[in-house]
């Protein structure tokens, strides 16, 4: 069935990304928006827009009933969930089915199977896909947890069974850390997924996080794409991704790719999706999980293959057979993605919601911006801190890196703090340039203190003096008793946003 109108049940950059594909395909788009998002780009970008509730996600973007209502009212044929929110919620898929709306993603059975990490591990183990050692059952109590941890041996990872997106994950190095890690992981899991179930994996030392984009249609045709290297993570959140991985040669690429397709086959998967693996120092790889949705980092794959994954995903949802064959998937050059988060890297990455008062995005050859913001946009504190993605392509990894450094040097965001400068640090790090990275990379990098050169320091001093001269009256007297690390505009911001206790 040809889809003519899609409701996009998401916001910010990913909602825009999907709407762009729709617009190019001649498909009408329907936005849903919460109170604070009336002026957000996604609300204004689409052909239609429906208000679905107050700003907290639990009252809007997580409200299945309101989203289904908007879909019915607008006459949408299909719903695209993006990532996060309801993207991996099989209840939501059921409601779509009940109302005759196509859910753009895999079948409910696939989501049910893969969405729960312990179920998925059991299935993969039985389908000859290598998994990380650990429990294949949820750990029901803290006592059991202690026992299992002992059995597997430290270090271990605690993970949310309903997890994804790096939420509800904690590394536990020894028994003394277990209790506190368990509490935080459970509470994060509960907040993020409404389910605090935890399981254990053996922690692999210095692993790389490697994942394979796959596509599989309703007719059993499948494709795998060149792997993505996602080892650059902070607190289990990916920070920077690239394709291909510097660690993987074409033989291993094909082996992992075929394994990913095997995993998809085992799950009867029928959409685009991602099979995540850990790669150890001896190039053994282990199945981690399947993300049954479009992923934040899908653009790097698009850049090196020229294939629009969102279009492919929509076509699969239309029940079309995939027209491409595995031979059509050619690896062309190298791509890197930097996630731009509204976080302050100088202040331990604390969230930085607020109003964007200045914005200059990078441009030129080999640069792609997937953003959800604009000059004047308000970044609410209710949702994920990702505000955009910067992707560069080069004919080699070196060129992609040089181009990314160049692009980052052009990026200017005023009003909120972002991780742009942190990405510059990553790209200038010799281990990164050499491609010798693991999931430990960010922690190691954060320990290094770089001294800026003498001349730049002098310029900073001169600039401060001139600014003082220009704004003579603005120099504060200094106040030793209160520590206010944030800008004093915070309170104003909170008031402007009309934030109140009920809102959070």
């Amino acid at each position, binding site marked *: 069935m040809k889809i003519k109108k899609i409701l996009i049940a998401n916001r910010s950059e990913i909602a825009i990304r999907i709407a762009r594909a729709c617009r190019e395909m001649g498909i009408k788009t329907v936005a849903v928006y919460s109170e604070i998002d009336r002026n957000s780009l996604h609300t204004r970008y689409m052909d239609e827009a429906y208000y679905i509730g107050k700003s907290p996600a639990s009252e809007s973007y997580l409200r299945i009933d309101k989203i289904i209502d908007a879909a019915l009212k607008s006459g949408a044929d299909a719903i695209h969930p993006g990532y996060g929110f309801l993207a991996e919620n099989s209840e939501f898929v059921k409601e779509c089915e009940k109302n005759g709306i196509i859910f753009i993603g895999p079948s409910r059975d696939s989501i049910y199977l893969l969405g729960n990490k312990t179920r998925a591990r059991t299935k993969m183990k039985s389908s000859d896909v290598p998994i990380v050692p650990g429990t294949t059952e949820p750990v029901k109590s803290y006592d059991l947890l202690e026992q299992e941890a002992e059995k597997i041996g430290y270090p271990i990872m605690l993970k949310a069974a309903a997890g994804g997106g790096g939420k509800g994950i904690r590394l536990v190095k020894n028994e003394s850390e277990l209790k506190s890690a368990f509490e935080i992981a459970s509470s994060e899991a509960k907040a993020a997924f409404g389910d605090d179930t935890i399981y254990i994996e053996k922690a692999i030392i210095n692993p790389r996080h490697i994942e394979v984009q796959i596509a599989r249609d309703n007719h059993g045709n499948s494709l795998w794409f060149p792997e993505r290297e996602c080892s650059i993570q902070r607190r289990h959140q990916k920070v920077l991704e690239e394709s291909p991985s510097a660690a993987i040669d074409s033989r291993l690429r094909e082996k992992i790719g075929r394994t990913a397709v095997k995993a998809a086959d085992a799950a009867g998967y029928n959409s685009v999706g991602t099979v995540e693996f850990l790669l150890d120092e001896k190039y053994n790889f282990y199945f981690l999980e399947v993300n049954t949705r479009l992923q934040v980092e899908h653009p790097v794959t698009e850049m090196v293959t020229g294939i629009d994954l969102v279009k492919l995903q929509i076509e699969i949802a239309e029940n079309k057979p995939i027209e491409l064959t595995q031979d059509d998937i050619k690896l062309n050059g190298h791509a890197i993605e930097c996630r731009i988060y509204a976080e302050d890297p100088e202040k331990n990455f604390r*969230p930085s919601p607020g109003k964007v008062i200045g914005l200059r995005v990078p441009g030129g050859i080999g640069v792609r911006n997937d953003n959800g913001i604009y000059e004047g946009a308000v970044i609410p504190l209710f949702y994920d801190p990702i505000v955009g993605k910067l992707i560069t392509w080069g004919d080699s990894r070196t060129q992609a890196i040089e181009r990314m450094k160049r692009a980052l040097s052009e990026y200017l965001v005023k009003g909120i703090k972002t991780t742009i400068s942190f990405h510059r640090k990553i790209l200038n790090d010799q281990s990164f340039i050499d491609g010798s990275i693991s999931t430990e990379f960010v922690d190691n990098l954060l320990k290094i203190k770089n001294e800026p050169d003498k001349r*730049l320091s002098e310029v900073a001093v*001169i600039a*401060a003096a*001139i*600014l003082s001269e220009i*704004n003579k009256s603005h120099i504060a007297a*200094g106040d030793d008793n209160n520590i206010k690390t944030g800008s004093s505009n915070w*309170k104003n911001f909170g008031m402007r946003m009309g934030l109140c206790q009920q809102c959070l």
Partner: protein
Amino acid sequence: MYYVGLKEEESKVEVSGRRGSIFDVEIDGKLRQVDFVKAENSYSLIIDGKSYEIDCEKSKNGYDIWMGGNYFQVSVLSEAQKRIQLSKKGKKSGGPQIIETEMPGKIVLVKKVTGETVKKGETVVVLEAMKMQNEILSPKDGTIEEMYVKDAQMVEASDKLFKIK
């Protein structure tokens, strides 16, 4: 004359003249002509042909400056302020500190109680905002003199969290 501090070093800087966007700046005795303009919410400096773009924000003691991916915390004192600072010298400012939250959010965990001793860098409170848990650490070794928040409490920006001595 300004006393401009960056890390451990302090420079004496005099902004002695201005013609349009050109400032005469004397830094530690050396004279520089600085072309200084505001553009695109940032500042552009040209000094001896070298061009610099800086992003800048007023901070408590001076300016936070970003340049080429580097971050500079620069303090600025006028001559009058410098004199006050000198006269204060010797007096230790080791009094109690009140820690405030710099962002609105929800307290999800209070790990310490009044009277408990804490080490520098230890987690005192966990706050949730933008779907992430943020651990609020103790800035020094000491004792919690007062805890202003409790579990599940919503806080606004600049609300007090705890006092430490």
